[in-house]
């Protein structure tokens, strides 16, 4: 209530006059914030341009620098792999003008959310270079956006969740400064969150970057700040002028980007099946991904590789997907065989689908109605028994299979009758 009391005190502050229109003023370079010196002393460099100032931090890493299980230079192997890859894939890049990119913001959405930190990692012949641009204060936004160089055409950006977060935020900020800045380019964008979700579905239950670092990249952060505190830390640094905690946010962002690079190396090697396999689950996901991208040949070869490498039980999902691959190219006998091999090793929901596919092939391709009937009956049995389906789903599936069963029985009768007729 004290807020309301305050407001009542302030009532006298309300003054009114007819609305006036603001005229468009030419761009004036904003004043430097009072704390410019203090921030400089903490190790940040001041960059001045036509739009004001921006703070910058550069970090240089040797080619052999290790982050978790990876050396940074392995990224060149990854580019080489993509360069020899014949096909289309969302993670594919030719390695030219690639930027690993991540931002920190003051909120989650809307035009009142500022980007206060842009981190970018690139490389030269013999070293890697991280550049972080820090918003001096909101009036110096154009200076930071310009200095980031993200408007330059022809770049490829690699991000983690950048497609739905960082890039739209950048577009929003750009729109608000569009009268002064060069047009923001529309770069090739590889979002590794999407990639990770495809690769580790049913394997990881969380796709936070720190989780992936620990589980897959062999990196554990010590002394990191939780990401959700970043906005408050920045706003506090601007309000108080003291940058000490802000440096921890820079470190957080640095780790994010280094992990982004190693994640790119790791997923590339997994997707292109170089050297090693992570697990049958992720390999199956990768095969499925190729199939969904209509690269059926590659998909099939991935499934086949899993089957040679793992036992039947481990490769069951691969058999399942491979079944669909064969069915698609009308290799019904191979499809049947493949589906059959997955039986007994996959979840009930999939097993019901397998019976459905087996029944379809038996009915339509093999014209073996007895066999088709057998599979349908197995499916019906499983639907009753399983705990994986909800009552309504059970009813629906049962209904579908019963219709199929009726049709098969009808065909069976006709074929028996005609067979009998032939005999006569």
């Amino acid at each position, binding site marked *: *209530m004290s807020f*309301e*009391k305050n*407001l*009542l005190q*302030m*009532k006298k*502050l*309300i*003054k*009114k*006059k*007819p*609305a*006036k*229109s*603001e005229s468009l003023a030419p761009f*004036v370079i*904003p*004043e430097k*914030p009072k704390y410019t010196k203090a921030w400089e002393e903490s190790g940040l460099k001041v960059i001045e341009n036509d739009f004001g100032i921006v703070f910058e931090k550069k970090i240089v890493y040797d080619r052999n620098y290790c982050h978790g299980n990876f050396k940074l230079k392995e990224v060149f192997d990854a580019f080489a792999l993509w360069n020899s890859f014949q096909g289309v894939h969302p993670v594919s890049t030719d390695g030219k003008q690639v930027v690993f990119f991540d931002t920190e913001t*003051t*909120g*989650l*959405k*809307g*035009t*009142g*959310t*500022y980007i206060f930190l842009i981190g970018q990692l690139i490389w030269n012949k013999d070293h890697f270079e991280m550049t972080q641009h820090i918003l001096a*204060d*909101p*009036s110096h936004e154009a200076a930071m956006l310009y200095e980031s160089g993200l408007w330059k055409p022809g770049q490829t950006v690699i991000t983690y969740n950048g497609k739905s977060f960082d890039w739209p935020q950048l*577009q*929003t900020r750009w*729109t*608000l400064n569009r009268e002064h800045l060069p047009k923001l380019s529309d770069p090739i964008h590889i979002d590794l969150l999407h990639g990770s979700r495809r690769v580790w579905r049913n394997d990881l239950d969380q796709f936070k970057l720190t989780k992936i670092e620990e589980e897959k990249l062999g990196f554990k952060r010590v002394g990191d700040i939780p990401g959700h505190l970043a*906005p*408050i830390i920045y*706003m506090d640094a*601007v*309000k108080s002028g003291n940058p000490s905690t802000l440096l921890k946010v820079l470190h957080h962002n640095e780790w994010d980007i280094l992990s982004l690079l190693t994640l790119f190396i790791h997923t590339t090697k997994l997707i292109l099946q170089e050297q090693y396999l992570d697990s049958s689950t992720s390999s199956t996901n990768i095969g499925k991904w190729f199939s969904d991208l209509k690269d059926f040949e590659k998909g099939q070869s991935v499934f086949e590789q899993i089957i040679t490498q793992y036992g039947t039980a481990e490769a069951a999902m691969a058999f399942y997907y491979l079944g669909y691959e064969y069915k698609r190219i009308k290799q019904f006998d191979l499809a049947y065989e493949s589906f059959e091999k997955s039986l007994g090793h996959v979840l009930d929901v999939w097993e019901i689908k397998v019976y459905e596919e087996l029944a379809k092939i038996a009915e339509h391709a093999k014209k073996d109605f007895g066999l088709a009937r057998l599979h349908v009956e197995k499916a019906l049995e499983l639907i009753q028994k399983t705990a994986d389906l909800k009552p309504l789903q059970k009813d629906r599936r049962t209904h579908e299979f019963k219709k199929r069963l009726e049709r098969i029985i009808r065909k069976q009768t006709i074929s028996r009758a005609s067979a009998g007729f032939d005999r006569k």
Partner: protein
Amino acid sequence: MRERIVHWHTIDEKQAFLSDFPEDLHPSIQQALKERGITQLYSHQRLAYDTARTGQSFTAITPTASGKSLCYHLPVLQSIVEDSSSRALYLFPTKALAQDQKSDLNLLIEQMNQDILSYTYDGDTSPAIRTKVRKAGHIVLTNPDMLHSGILPHHTKWVSLFENLKYIVVDELHTYKGVFGSHVAHVLRRLKRICQYYGSNPVFICTSATIANPQELAESLTNETHKLIDKNGAPSGKKNFIFYNPPIVHPTFGVRRSAILEVRDLAKRLYKEGIQTIVFAKSRVRVEMLVTYLKELSKKKINDESIRGYRGGYLPSERRQIEKGLRDGTIQTVVSTNALELGVDIGQLQACIMTGYPGNIASAWQQAGRAGRRQDEALIIYVAQSTALDQYIVNHPAFLLGQSPEEARIHPDNLVILMDHLKCASFELPFKTTEQYGEFEIQELLAYLEEEGILVRTSDKWHWMSDRFPAHEISLRSASQENVIIIDQTIPAATKVIGEMDRYSAMTLLHEEAIYLHQGIQFQVEKLDWEEKKAFVREVDVDYFTDANLAVELKVMSEDKERSYKNGAVFYGDVSILAMATIFKKIRFDTHDNIGSGPIQLPPEELHTSSSWLSFNRPPGWTDAMLTDAMTGAATSIASFIPLFVHCDRRDIHVVPQVKSIHAELPTFFVYDSYPGGIGISERVFDVWPELLGHVEQHVEACPCDQGCPACIGPQEAIVGMKDEVLKLLAYLQLESTGDPYVI
């Protein structure tokens, strides 16, 4: 029944006034109109078109079924045919109305055979088409809430709309009053600020039901000068307007038979005659009571849906189904709150019954407008309740039938509301240190927000510096964001949410043991979790309903204006109110006997608001007891008459009598606004005390009862009523001015 008809008024048919199509009207639009059988425009549609084309914002007064949508469709469509980069934004008070209008608009566009894209943009719009709507939608139909939290804070995604916005259409202008209207006034100021940023300067087109001050309302809502178009060219059929007063059942106390029971009987007769009827009742509870009564008529039929209730708190799908039933005739009688007053498309019905006066003339005509098919005669029955205002109206039909509708007022100056939207506006675009916001000078207020740590000041701007998203914390519809969710736990394994209610109403309607009615089904509240804002209810079958009392404590915090009179003085200022639900009564259906009561255990709610009060010197020789009774009676009457002067709901204001006010130690009547910070009602009352008291005295005097009755000073408990004392007091209070007001 005939003798209960106090007055029978017929309104003759009215001929149409027509004009030719404007010469420049695009052939495709002319073609589309001809396909609909329209070869000429009504005069007001033509004037609207011509005015819009000169770039002048305007407000058109448009009764039900006068073809109001063409007033805005024509100039908007014309501007898009001429230049396909043009954009228009349509605002409707609710999502449902926008969706309704979209089908009509799309049909028109189809008939034009042009590539014009119109979309609704609200919570139901699928994420898949949102980008398309933002980038390519020529006409975007939305509601103020969505504009407030879904569009303005993301304006950078709407660049093509804001750069090319030619028209902003505000439909149902008259609904933007009070708190909601004040909020929307700010949403529109924010919208204009964004338009200016992108370099557009749209024309406003408002359409409104009949109110006293449409132009003033439009101008204060949009902060823009408007031309008024009030000559309606549409024809109308003959209307029979019946003023019906329930019989007096207790002559001494002037007690009349309950209006609800009369309405039940009238609605039954119309139902049996097969006449499609809409019954308006003033509260959710009354809607449910009437539905319960009327369903008796159809209970022998299985799955009969011919009688339905309709009100806020029903789920949207349920409402859509009822609207459809009314259009296709499967529903014969609908009982509704004022929710169906607005332009929800339910077609035209044959008869309309109003249970009591809806509180203002504009609403009364909106409700009456629901009856009247093109060629048919329409029947409108106004059934008076026992309240003072209702009795006044039934005895003075000219009041309703004459041309004196109320003013609709908004109060964008409310500081709570202003600050809320200043935050939103700061979030949307940083304010310059020289900028003003709408008509407000705000630099000092921005400095306050900086102190609060929400803004940061740089050399020439105030920047939002918080991780919060202010629009989500501010609801346009109610004082408090938090609603109480109503959960049906009749079947423990399958609990479901059946409705919601604002916090203030919940104190008296959802307390534990309250009977809550939903679609005629009774539920008892078993548990009210005030912390979590959840009410758990279970279906019951009882023969009573519940009614709760609210106790109020009041303190004056500041006096801003004062005006002296002979025996007293009136003031305007800020007060602090502490409201607490105290007890509830169980009241039997039909007889309305009190059959039990119980306490309500809820924490008090505090409210800071504006108030106008009348303090007076104790009339010589009066005891405390006499004064208490007389003041209580007079307060009842004063409360009833305030809506006559200011377009507001009865529940927007409260009148509290104090024999010895804590503040001045004098007998005092307080009138205060029900919303934090006030919404301008008591400020208006400050100016009209003499007329208000004059009206009250006249009415009490003219009332036919002996001792005082619900129609004048409220029901009297003792055998000897206080009517004489109330009259003496009112006569004593007739305010003779002693000079000009002055501001302290």
